[in-house]
């Protein structure tokens, strides 16, 4: 169990850095897909089967495909995305430093969490059925509001897409 965990962690961290570091967006999308799948495995280890499925289907499947479309849309006939050195001097170093400091702080904050392994989960925890029950009873309102959010997304894209300049 621990071995699987460490493998997934390694994959996660490496692919995450891969997403950030690669110059070409398509490479970073691929890295992201691998990252998400490792994440799905992690979810499985945490008895969150439904979440793992969602991660794969929605996240990796739908969202990243959308990313691919947009990347291809924008970079036809142009050179590598980021040409030339960054105009903003004095941006790279402070961001890395602050990122690392943030990580250190979070780590120290998080360290107080119990280091012991979690107790054995009851049989039905994490099953889709009980998840669905919870979703549609205690968190029914949240479920409804997600409806609004998606509606807004649709309307938003429609509003922006209505522009005539969008000629392609």
């Amino acid at each position: 169990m621990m071995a699987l965990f460490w493998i997934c962690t390694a994959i996660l961290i490496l692919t995450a850095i891969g997403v950030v570091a690669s110059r070409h967006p398509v490479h970073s999308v691929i890295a992201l897909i691998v990252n998400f799948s490792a994440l799905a495995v992690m979810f499985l280890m945490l008895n969150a089967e439904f979440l793992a499925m969602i991660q794969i289907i929605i996240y990796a499947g739908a969202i990243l495909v959308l990313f691919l479309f947009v990347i291809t849309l924008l970079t036809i006939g142009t050179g590598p995305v980021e040409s030339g050195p960054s105009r903003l001097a004095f941006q790279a170093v402070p961001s890395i430093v602050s990122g690392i400091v943030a990580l250190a702080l979070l780590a120290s904050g998080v360290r107080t969490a119990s280091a012991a392994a979690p107790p054995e989960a009851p049989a039905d925890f994490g099953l889709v059925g009980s998840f669905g029950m919870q979703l549609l009873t205690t968190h029914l309102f949240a479920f409804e509001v997600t409806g609004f959010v998606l509606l807004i997304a649709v309307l938003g894209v429609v509003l922006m897409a209505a522009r005539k300049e969008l000629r392609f």
Partner: protein
Amino acid sequence: MPGVPLADYLAVASALFAVGVIGFLLRRNPITMLMAIELMWNAGNLAFAAFARTFVDFSGQIFVFIVVTVAAAEAAIALAIVVMVFRRRRDVDVDEISELRG
């Protein structure tokens, strides 16, 4: 199977979060920045899942589900805006866009 301690999950989540933040600040390509944001959001998801597991409580998992849907909506809108903004420009560089200032 012996469980994995909560602290490790959180450490991983924090690491993912940090990489996401640094990625956002470093890259000048909006799409990569969006991907970095997705990374940050997923770090949150991981933390939520881990806590759900420890407390044997579904709220955490519900939150992850909601974050995923919202992430989808947000990605859609963000990419639409990015497309709208960069459709006519030669290169896709965030620093080019800085007329509003002062």
